[in-house]
């Protein structure tokens, strides 16, 4: 492999700094002892982290967000696996149209989706419910789940399944013992991406969430409309630490490059 020239190294360094700087700044600001957003010049303080516990709304919103992300991404992946296998294996009329339909939430602006869901849920009596929130998130995160499972499904040599059938395995056994393990990297990464996107979604959720069902990003958004203080930086720092921890754990378990680049080999 060729060594990078000093100029290229400089460019890469700047690029990485540009990507990481906002995250770093937020984390540093979270440790300020002051009452306003500033760098902690008088030494670090945990004042604003302690302050989070004075706002039970944040804790509750965090818990709701986790539930929402877990539920919607799990349902989305359960829909994505059979859909992806059908699309990857079979040629049937409307196959292209179906794929596009499943991917369409990516193309519709979330503001539009938010307004549409608000109207729709009011119509069918789901407005302001947690169920409504889960349903709308399933639709928004489905493309992420489908895309990654689809990529994994295309990579399967169908003769491996034929071999299992010839050895006496029925449909259910083939799926459980052969197909699912083979697409597992796609399933796990699809689920993860779906969960992250659900947890992160604010543009659409802000329209659907009611005071009883506020997700963490929406809660944060509402909070900074009224107050600008380092509390929000402390919450952000906690989220960054949590996400980093989760990714490190997944990397140890599966190997992240395998999940997202998807070589398909175990």
């Amino acid at each position: 492999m060729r060594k990078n020239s000093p100029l290229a190294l400089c460019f890469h360094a700047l690029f990485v700094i540009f990507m990481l700087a906002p995250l770093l700044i937020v984390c540093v600001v979270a440790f300020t002892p002051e009452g306003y957003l500033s760098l902690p010049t008088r030494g670090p303080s945990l004042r604003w982290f302690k302050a989070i516990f004075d706002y039970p709304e944040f804790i509750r919103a965090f818990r709701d967000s986790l539930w929402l992300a877990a539920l919607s991404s799990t349902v989305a992946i359960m829909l994505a696996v059979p859909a992806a296998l059908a699309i990857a294996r079979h040629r049937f009329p409307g196959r292209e149209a179906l794929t596009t339909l499943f991917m369409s939430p990516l193309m519709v602006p979330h503001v539009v989706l938010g307004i549409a869901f608000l109207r729709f849920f009011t119509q069918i009596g789901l407005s302001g419910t947690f169920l409504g929130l889960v349903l709308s998130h399933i639709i928004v995160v489905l493309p992420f789940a489908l895309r990654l499972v689809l990529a994994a499904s295309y990579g399967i040599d169908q003769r491996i399944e034929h071999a299992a059938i010839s050895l006496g395995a029925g449909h259910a056994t083939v799926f459980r013992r052969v197909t699912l393990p083979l697409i597992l990297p796609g399933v796990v990464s699809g689920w993860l991406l779906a969960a992250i996107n659900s947890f992160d979604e604010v543009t659409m959720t802000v329209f659907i969430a009611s005071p009883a069902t506020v997700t963490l990003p929406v809660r944060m958004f509402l909070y900074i409309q009224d107050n600008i203080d380092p509390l929000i930086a402390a919450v952000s720092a906690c989220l960054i630490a949590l996400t980093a921890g989760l990714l490190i754990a997944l990397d140890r378990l599966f190997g992240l490059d395998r999940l997202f680049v998807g070589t398909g080999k175990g």
Partner: protein
Amino acid sequence: MSHLVLEGLGKSYGSAVAVEGLDLSVERGEFVSLLGPSGCGKTTTLQMIAGFVPVDRGRILLDGGDLVAVPPNKRGLGIVFQSYALFPHMTVAQNIAFGLEMRGIDKAERETRTLEAMALVGLKGFADRYPRRMSGGQQQRVALARALVIKPALLLLDEPLSNLDAKLREEMQSELRQIQRSIGTTTILVTHDQHEAMALSDRIVLMNQGRVEQIGAPDAVYGKPASAFVASFLGKTNVLRGTGDGSGAVSIGAFSLPIAGAGAGPVQLAVRPERLSLAAAGASGFEVRVTSRVFQGAHWLLTADSAAGPLILMRHNDGQPVPAEGETVTLSFAPSDAALLAPGDAR
């Protein structure tokens, strides 16, 4: 009653016919190859026997029972694919034991039979290895063991050696033959490699465009090709144009020889290059002019022009003088070395 009988087997994809009117009887313990160019229907035939492609017409009888209505997971056949198709997330032992597990065989017997199968294919000590950490040849052995451990009624091999390099392929061929002989499993091999088919099979089924061209032992099919297609597909051959006199004799120029079944008018004879010999001085034969001469170690390969058409001939490197380029020589061949090709069977 033959072990496996294919009766008028046929398959179409839309208006395209993949296999048509295939009749074949295979005896117990026999090794039969389906040989032909790609798209000849040999793989489709194997897939129909395995049950992965539905049968449109005809019957597949195994020991007298019709297989067509039996789902593929109940047929109890062993299959080895060109791509090995091993389970990448399972170890060698788990791969081999899979079929036994599906049959509900208890753990202790599973282990014994898995170890036996591994010994049979020469993979002792590989039990805990994952397929991705093995060479192509080793993976193919695992696939073979996995197919054989269930004691299948039939062993189906779909181009099993095509992914291996030439030297390994030859080794595996003789080993495969030896394993098949020792356990006596009736075997159907699909291949496009004529050498593989000839080296391994008791009988060859030569297929072209969905139809059987010829069925027979390798030397019989090679020596007496039934059609120009068989003659040209199986090894190198010469198709010589001659004239029949209507009374069972064919003449090429001044060279005349008796050929049973030859009609009057133009006929075509298939003669292998190694069966064309230089005529002794004064003996009858037909004249050819050598156009090129290539040395290939054990033999010389010559091309020549003649009144019967262009031809190739082979001279063993036995110390005798070899005709030079541009030289005119007289060739002859024995009537028994010529196969009469069906009339109108254009090349």
